């Protein structure tokens, strides 16, 4: 059978079960677009290539599948870089196809030529330039394997125009072999036995879970471990949802804006069972004072995450779900004693921290952003898919929306990329059409990819945008308030558009609340609308996120409200 590269690409995408592609066309990918239109694969035309990557990313995070995008060469390709870096930092599986000038022009500074493979080398898990149509099918298959397995991540494939339109006799590739790539899924049992021993003997243990548990779909096993051993659980920002936010053993998030009790636990505990985390500086604070009394068991599929920032007593390389499952089976065989009495002192101490220093704010005359999130949580019964922008809005979402399940909190953790929330919400809504998807946004961030409102409208996606409008780049302003004597240099955002009118201009519904008593009615009306909705909450301008650990300070030294 003679097929063009573009046709071969469609064959492979269908084999990989791709149902949605986020993209934006251009000269060198017209051949591919021409073939794409002949398939059942749904193409979502974004309004900016960064939006395409974030949308594919949101799609991947909500569905647990590989997200796919397609863009043209040159500016199309460079526009994807921020999105790719975002996915890379959070280990999200996506495959990005970029068009490239014909192979014979590569290196000649041809029109819209850019070395996107060179540019994205440090922010992709792997990338390819396809030089011959004969290699295309194999490379695409490899890309999907690499993106979705081990520690997932973005993989980019650069497709020169002649590779797409050359016809060859196509033979589907046989089994794909990646001789040097085999992630370790099964843990070393000796290390697991050592972990069991530490868990058995610990008096003040905590479990610390992160995005790796989401990615490995290990939430059930993690919850089982916590309950079986009566161990309280904290999460990094990326882990929120892997343990129910309503469970009595829940400590809340740890880190720079973690809860008082979670951060205090890290200082006091004698054991941390860390699962699918990488001990980011936003979690540890000053590393040499982190968890001074604790032995650390660290489970992660990526060996480079272990002992990168923090010394570890028991390193365990393996898939979080598999490893936790095995750990639970080993613990089943152990006599753990009467955990109720054994843990009483530790859990009482935690309760005391919780009751004396809870997350708190006072709702007075002006709407408090925290109040909006709490109401949103109540009205959605904690079951919406929440995406966020970056800044205070993101931290309040993390603190006040008590996630029950994994894959429901979609946020740019590692890169902290403003403009992520709206396109990610679009991707999540496409992956989960029956779910309520809400982007918790700041007035600054939402403007970074606001053009995607048109995408939401075009495909009738009823995503809801909750803007916590403080007319500031609030998180930066907070740092300036606390550490720069309130010199608000470059953080005022008074000149924003009227978001209600803007929503209407896009054909969406726009609502606004300026008083506390309007919050609930606006949320009710907005959330129940079948349309894309922007809800603009005019909030207290100078509210700060607390607790806060100043950058570089020990994690137990928090500024409190």
């Amino acid at each position, binding site marked *: 059978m003679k097929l063009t590269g573009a046709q071969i690409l469609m064959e492979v995408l269908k084999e990989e079960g791709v149902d949605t592609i986020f993209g934006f066309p251009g000269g060198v990918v017209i051949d591919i677009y021409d073939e794409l239109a002949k398939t059942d694969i749904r193409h979502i035309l974004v309004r900016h290539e960064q939006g395409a990557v974030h949308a594919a990313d949101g799609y991947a995070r909500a569905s647990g599948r590989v997200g796919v995008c397609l863009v043209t060469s040159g500016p199309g390709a460079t526009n994807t870089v921020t999105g790719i870096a975002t996915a890379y930092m959070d280990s999200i599986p996506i495959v990005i196809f970029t068009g490239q000038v014909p192979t014979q022009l590569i290196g000649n500074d041809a029109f819209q030529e850019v070395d996107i493979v060179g540019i994205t*080398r*440090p922010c992709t898990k792997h990338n390819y330039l396809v030089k011959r149509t004969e290699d295309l099918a194999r490379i695409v298959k490899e890309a999907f394997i690499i993106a979705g397995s081990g520690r997932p991540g973005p993989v980019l494939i650069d497709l020169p125009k002649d590779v797409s339109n050359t016809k060859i006799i196509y033979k589907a590739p046989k089994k794909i072999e990646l001789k040097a790539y085999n992630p370790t899924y099964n843990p070393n049992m000796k290390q697991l036995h050592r972990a069991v021993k530490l868990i058995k003997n610990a008096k003040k243990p905590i479990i610390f879970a992160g995005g790796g548990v989401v990615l490995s779909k290990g939430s059930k096993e993690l919850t089982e471990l916590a309950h079986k051993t009566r161990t309280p659980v904290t999460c990094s920002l990326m882990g929120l949802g892997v343990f129910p936010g309503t469970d009595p053993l829940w400590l809340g998030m740890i880190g720079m804006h973690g809860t008082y009790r979670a951060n205090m636990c890290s200082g006091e505990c004698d054991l941390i069972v860390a699962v699918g985390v990488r001990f980011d500086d936003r979690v540890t604070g000053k590393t040499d004072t982190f968890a001074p009394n604790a032995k650390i068991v660290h489970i992660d599929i990526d060996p480079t995450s272990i002992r990168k920032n923090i010394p570890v007593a028991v390193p365990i390389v393996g898939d979080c779900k598999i490893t936790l499952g095995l750990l639970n089976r080993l613990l089943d065989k152990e006599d753990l004693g009467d955990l109720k009495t054994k843990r009483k002192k530790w859990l009482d101490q935690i309760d005391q921290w919780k009751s004396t220093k809870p997350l708190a704010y006072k709702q007075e005359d002006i709407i408090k952003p925290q109040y909006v999130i709490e109401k949103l949580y109540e009205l959605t019964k904690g079951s919406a898919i929440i995406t966020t922008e970056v800044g205070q809005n993101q931290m309040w979402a993390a603190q006040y929306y008590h996630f029950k399940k994994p894959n429901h909190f979609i946020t740019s953790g590692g890169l902290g990329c403003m403009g992520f929330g709206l396109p990610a919400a679009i991707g999540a809504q496409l992956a989960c059409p029956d779910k309520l998807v809400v982007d918790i946004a700041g007035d600054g961030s939402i403007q970074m990819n606001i053009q995607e409102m048109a995408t939401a409208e075009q495909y009738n996606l009823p995503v809801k945008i909750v803007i916590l409008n403080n007319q500031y780049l609030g998180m930066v302003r907070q740092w300036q308030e606390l550490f720069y004597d309130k010199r608000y240099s470059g953080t005022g955002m008074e000149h924003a558009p009227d978001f209600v009118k803007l929503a209407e201009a896009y054909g969406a519904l726009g609502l606004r609340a300026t008083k506390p008593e309007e919050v609930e009615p606006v949320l009710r009306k907005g959330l129940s609308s079948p349309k894309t909705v922007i809800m603009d909450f005019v909030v207290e301008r100078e509210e700060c996120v607390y607790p806060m650990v100043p950058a570089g300070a020990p994690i137990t030294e928090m500024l409190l409200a």
Partner: protein
Amino acid sequence: MTEQKHILSILVDNQPGVLSRIAGLFSGRGYNIESLSVAETIDPLVSRITMVTMADTPVVEQIMKQLHKLINVIKVYELTGSSYVQREMALIKVQARPERRAEILRIVDIFRCKVVDVGQGHYTLEVTGDEGKMDAILNLLKPIGIKEIAKTGIIALFREPK
């Protein structure tokens, strides 16, 4: 923690861009490269990179893991600490004024190197050896006057059990 010299032997896919991935990893993460040598192995699909880096133990552990994570890296060995042979080759252009020629040739003889080019005012020497020998000959030639030098960087292999 003290920094030490580590010799790494890295087998990689013999493809364009692979060296750039490795160099990028080192520059991006702030690791240092003292020397680097690359060539095809007996299997034309595979190249061997021999790299010398200065690092303390946790860092070299992290370097090896990071290298391993690259899809095109097949195997990473650390040679330092086990039994291995290492060689480096240098081409050294020395000033050869008539009154020093005999001395230079004596050094050539002692170090078992070769004169591969002779000119009006210079000799070019080919030297092969381990680091100790390289240092020694350079120390002797420096006072005579070294005009230019090209070195290959270290290459090394494990010794087989006897």
